[in-house]
């Protein structure tokens, strides 16, 4: 059972205090988008065995959504960061690269 630190309130919350929200950094495609774009936005998920950026909500805490970079295989957490970011912060990317040189990035 995971522990993730909420970057908004600083609580090291356990999984039962959180609710999961799937893959992070998706771009929304609305009216006017092609079928392929919409399909990718709606359904195509990376689901990697390895480093993954995810959405979590501190549901039983401050209620804020945040993002987490973690390895889905070893469950190592590289960091959590604010939801209002378009990409993982540089220090987290560096930390991932140091430990997982083969990592190809979040997108």
């Amino acid at each position: 059972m995971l522990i993730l630190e909420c970057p908004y309130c600083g609580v090291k919350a356990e999984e039962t205090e959180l609710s999961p929200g799937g893959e992070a950094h998706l771009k929304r495609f609305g009216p006017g988008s092609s079928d392929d774009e919409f399909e990718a936005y709606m359904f195509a998920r990376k689901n990697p065995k390895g480093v993954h950026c995810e959405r979590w909500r501190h549901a039983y805490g401050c209620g804020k959504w945040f993002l987490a970079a973690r390895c889905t295989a070893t469950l190592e957490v590289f960091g959590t960061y604010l939801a209002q970011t378009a990409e993982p912060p540089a220090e987290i990317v560096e930390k991932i690269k140091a430990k997982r040189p083969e990592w190809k990035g979040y997108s």
Partner: protein
Amino acid sequence: MSTRLKSGGRLIDRSAPVEFTFNGKRLRGCAGDTLASALLANDQMLVGRSFKYHRPRGIVASGAEEPNALVNLGQGPRLEPNQRTTTTELFDGLEARSQNHWPSLEFDIGVVNNYAARFLPGGFYYKTFIHPRAAWKHFFEPIIRQSAGLGSAPKDRDADRYEQAYAFCDLLIVGGGIAGLQAALVAGRAGARVWLVEQTAHWGGRAPVDGDVIDGLPAADWVERSVAALMAMDNVTLRLRCMAAGSYDHGYVLLDEKIADHTPGDGRPKHRLWRMRTGKILAATGAIERPLSFAGNDIPGVMLAGAVRDYVVNWAVSPGDRTVVVTNNDDAYRTAIALHEAGLEVAAVIDARAAANGALPSRARALGIRVETGRAIAKVKGGKRVEGVEICLQAGEGSASSSLPCDAVAMSGGWSPVVHLWSHCGGKLIWDEEQAMFRPDPARPPLHQDGSAMVMAAGAANGALRDALADAHAQVNIALQALGFAAASSDAPAHTVPDEAPLEPVWVMPQGASVALRSKMWLDYQNDVKVSDVQLAAREGYESVEHTKRYTTLGMATDQGKLSNINGLAVLADSLNTAIPQVGTTTFRPPYTPVPLGALAGEARGEIFQPLRKTPMHGWHERNGAYFEPVGHWRRPYCFQRAGETVHQAVEREVKNTRQALGFLDASTLGKIIVKGPDAGRFLDMLYTGVMSTLPVGKCRYGLMCNEQGFLSDDGVVARIDEDTWLCHTTSGGADRIHAWMEDWLQCEWWDWQVFTANVTEQYAQVAVVGPNARKVLERLGGMDVSREALPFMAWRDGTLGGFPCRIYRISFSGELSYEIAVPASHGAAFWEALHKAGAEFGAMPYGTEALHIMRAEKGFIMIGDETDGTVIPQDLGLDWAISKKKADYLGKRGQERSFLANPDRWKLVGFETLDGSVIEDGAYIPDHGMNPNNQRKVQGRVTSTYHSPTLGRGIALGLLRQGPQRMGEVVEFTKRDGGTTKARVVETVFFDKDGEKQNV
């Protein structure tokens, strides 16, 4: 025979006798006994029958690894099956019954399986019960179910209580032997927050039995001194009877603490499940002795050598008068010496090794104990009790050279570290050739959240069988440094144990044993898996250890292979001509030993099994005949039954009364979310399919919400409170979900929009006042102008009614004149009573959710969850009027543009009237002609809501039908459960007051 010795027994108190029963027989033990030691003290070696062959089973071990001596403990509401006698502390009045036999333990009919054993080989079930296919369900399965399971399942509600608790520490040390104690001393002194847990009722583990000397003290004294030192440390928590069941992600460990197992009915919780979070886990869990595989090694009286020693030293119980010790290592000589020192006879030590000249064998010889090296047991003689052994050469095929009478056999095949906590979360093992054991590979530990090692193994659990103390000292220092604490400056205390010569792996005894002997060599005692079964599996192609396990059931018994696994996979490796590490182990899964379901449920039972949400009027409902139904976690009155009424009659009465006079509905469960800010209108226009930004202040508008795929997700009435504030009503079950949905979009997508939300669902008690007399009752309460002019349909006003501050929404979900009135929840019950008082003269009655549903269906209003199921778009329900064509975007708009959702063949909402007035069955389908590719009837529609309408006196229904609106007047057939059909005419969705005149008066 087994008996209590005249003196000794470090754990028992002879001055405190304890009475108990076994199969109804009254027996006596002492305080400090386990049930197993007390049974042995009463010469009750035979304690059960094995699972498959019903072979007689005796006590083999002295701890958690015991596979045989399982009993039904207690009775009625305190019956627990499969309780290990070796870990059950004796208490006065304990009742135990043996298992898996009929009619009695001594004479068991099922033992015929034993004589048919050659017809019941490994994989027997799979081979036998597969053909003919049809026989499985009605013939094989009932028979197998009848014979499955060892103990009897309790039938009564558990009389005990259980609880859970959360705990946090820097270092959790599992195992209260000398390794765990030493680690706790070091970590405690370093200032870490430490928990030390021990599954038994005693600290010290094996060292006091084995006579170790630590720091110049006998081990027992050192243990006592260490425990006293630890108790004095505020930062150290000590728990006995506390078993670490499993280690999980990110330092999560479940600990099962037995609190009142040995004091039943004293009012304390029976077990407490600790949900521990720890920085590091130090697994000082010791090692488990392996049996040796010789013919007849399952006959009662054959025991593990370490267990024999435990019974003699700890509980002053001799398993037999004359014991043969059989071994491949030096450690078992301790048992021979302990027996000798207790005044018992050791017939011989049979050592499979060519020579035995270590300190312990030399001491045994000096005591006059006969030692036979290079020898093996060819077979054990006896049925329900050992009578003797035949001796042969280990290197040979098993022809006996001599025979020795004895009534007990103490066997030792070496020791296996208890690596469960290391392995549960992915720690890997290495094969230690020299010690013939799997032990934790320090290079591949299970990982914590920061990528560091989560578990350290220490002492015997780490493979350090002889220098456990020094190893624990070293390992705890590694853990402390990783946690940021200073390592101990001092060295581990001196630990004096005799030198031991290496063991010699012996997986089959004798080495060249014949088939006849191999089919009497037990690996798994409880499930009856023998050496010959594993060899057969290998011949039949089961090369993976996981497959062999499932094929033979090796290690699948309640002991989960604690004794059998290593021996079994060594036999498999040998049969496959490969090395043991290539075969590997099966996966270690929690729990280490079984945890009661009650402990896993904790406090969640009875009244607090689940949170029940109650409105402020709930108490009134309970007092007034409410028949409740669950709506999410809420309990809502389905109807209010009067004396002599059926539920159906009550519902009919409520509908008629509301339509003809006046009804009150507790609508407090309706979700209420405030949305405020300069961008709130824009935000709601994205959330709803319609336009909310243009809603005038003081007005209400019905709205639909869809998910991004375009499917309907929720609906409700939105009220504009002021220039930048809206109040959104959601469905009763939907408030939390929709609030979370709003926050998701505001936080993660449109975070630059200035909008705040607040879920105020529970701030208000809300009452729907419905019916032709609705206005009259509000006027009677007084305080607000509720006339058509002052408060027109789809408007809201703030004010007071009968002195209650309130907000009135003039909305209707029934088609009647209707006001929904919100008052602060703290006044809800009083307001509800005031309404009833004022409404009495107008024929007021409360009504429940079923009347609500019928009235909305009569009006053709949809219900989320009835007309929708996650695959329905608003257009399917004829709700195009609630979808803005002008808006460039809203959530779900792009999804609804997908081609298959624009298909004219989609099922669409229509009404149905049965031709004979009957009610269409719930869930009924409308079959179509022809069959689909799966050879099932094609369907063209289904019912979504179906009721008897008291207003119209007939069955009405809403449903989805292919091209429905174009088929008005057509007669279709609905399926019935009895195979027949119900004919119904396709009609419009509004059955009653089609022009909406009643609600708009």
